[in-house]
């Protein structure tokens, strides 16, 4: 336990001192909020801000999870993890502290995004904050798990970030986080319905803004949890330290 705390502290320091990481984690979602906030303000109310905000939160959580695993991939591919195997530093504890730092960051991210929504755009939430918090946790866990699953199947750092991009870009544009899926062509709709990011975005939208979606809230949360379970199982099956 003591060694976990020590590693966790080091991992957290490492994360906080990573300027470019912080930029992607915080600056990007904030920029998106203001961009969409300004586009759809005043006369242009095609897509209400209450629709956009949960989508941006979902996107931020996905990126946090997906790209967090890339740090670990780099350690693995540079043989750092192999070297650690002969020291008393526990690699599992190192991985655990990485995951914990990500999950905690998810809450900070959510707090920042929600605060801006309230303070700048006067958003009011349909449900209490703790319900949003639970969704944030499940969503972050699901995408952290997806990230670690992906790095099981690549053996270079470039391959890892490429794969992460291939996974995240379609999810971002096809899951209706910025505009309703109904606006997309008919033939993609059946596929789009089952994009994991959509489960999270729809669930968040229902809890935060009271907007209904394709599936009821319980189904979305269930599907998201199922996705978390599946990625976790695959990760455990194919995980390698070296």
């Amino acid at each position, binding site marked *: 336990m*003591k*060694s976990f705390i*020590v*590693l966790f502290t*080091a*991992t957290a*320091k*490492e994360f906080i*001192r*990573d300027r470019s990481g912080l930029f992607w984690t915080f600056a990007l979602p904030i920029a998106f909020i203001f961009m969409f906030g300004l586009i759809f303000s005043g006369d242009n109310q095609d897509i209400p801000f209450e629709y956009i905000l949960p989508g941006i939160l979902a996107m931020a959580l996905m990126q946090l999870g997906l790209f967090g695993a890339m740090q670990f991939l780099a*350690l693995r591919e*540079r*043989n*750092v993890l*192999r*070297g*650690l*195997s*002969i*020291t*008393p*530093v526990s690699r599992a504890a*190192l991985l655990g502290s990485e995951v914990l730092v990500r999950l905690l960051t998810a809450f900070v991210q959510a707090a920042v995004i929600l605060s801006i929504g309230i303070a700048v755009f006067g958003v009011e939430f349909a449900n209490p904050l703790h319900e949003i918090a639970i969704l944030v946790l499940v969503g972050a866990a699901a995408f952290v798990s997806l990230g670690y699953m992906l790095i099981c199947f690549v053996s270079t750092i470039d391959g890892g970030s490429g794969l992460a991009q291939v996974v995240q870009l379609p999810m971002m544009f096809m899951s209706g986080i910025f505009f309703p899926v109904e606006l997309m062509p008919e033939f993609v709709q059946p596929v789009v319905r089952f994009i994991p990011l959509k489960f999270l975005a729809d669930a968040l939208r229902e809890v935060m803004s009271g907007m209904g979606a394709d599936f009821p809230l319980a189904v979305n949360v269930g599907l998201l949890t199922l996705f978390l379970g599946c990625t976790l199982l695959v990760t455990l099956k194919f995980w390698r330290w070296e």
Partner: protein
Amino acid sequence: MQTPCIEVKNLYKHYGDIKAVDGIDLSVQSGTVFGVLGPNGAGKTTTLETLLGLKQRDGGMVRILGFDPEKDQAALRHKVSAQLQAPAVFGRLTVKELLRLFASFYHDPLPSEEVLQMVGLQEKQKAPCDSLSGGQKHRLAVALAVAANGDVVFLDEPTTGLDPQSRRQLWDVIATLRHRGRTVVLTTHYMDEAEQLCDQLVIIDAGRIIARGRPRNLLDEHFPHDVLEFDNPGFGDATLARVGELPAVADWSRETGGRVVLHSRQASATIEALQRFASEEGRRISDITMRRASLEDLFLKLTGRMIRQ
């Protein structure tokens, strides 16, 4: 006779057709500095990594402190440390933070201040690890291995790429470890380093051991004679022939530029006799230089190649 702290029998590690380690036997006594010498690509690092269990061996037996590092890794974690690329883990931590982090995992680590002093990184203690130069990172890696304060320390080319001052500093670190009863296994392709530091050494070439022993003994065995050189003070051929008959002279020759080279079984006796002989002849020899054979010469003799080719 102590029991050996590291025992290796018939170690093999092959990559396809390449025999990186091709049947190596080692026996390292505890409390000594053991050198693995050889040119780049001779199999030194692979040997070390296989000893540590970082690479799986294809054959042979390895015992460190009585444990097999492949099977009993857990038992050795606190007792054996190695200079590795660990600084890459937390590049944004400062030197001191990283050292403290690693030290905290060991039962009885050395104080960070002391280790920083030993490797000469005190002034960099607040610098992020990522900002260090190559040589400084190297020293940090050594510092992490030293901080563990285990019984056995493996150092892989600890001084490669360091400036002369830092090299000396690391030599002091190794001497300190030895003084404290630690066992040090180091690889190097610097022959002077091996000669200075090692109690025992093996010379490896193409995955095989081509010589082993105490550095001094090895040299005495292969180069029983000291080499003396001086400028010919004007001796004629007949006089030079008599120089060749002086006490302990095994061989002599004339080099270009008027230098005379003597191979002596006992340098002091030959020098004394030479001086007396010269004054009897009414000459003065003032520039006798003595050169002892180095491990570099030995490697050349054994393989026909220079070590850094």
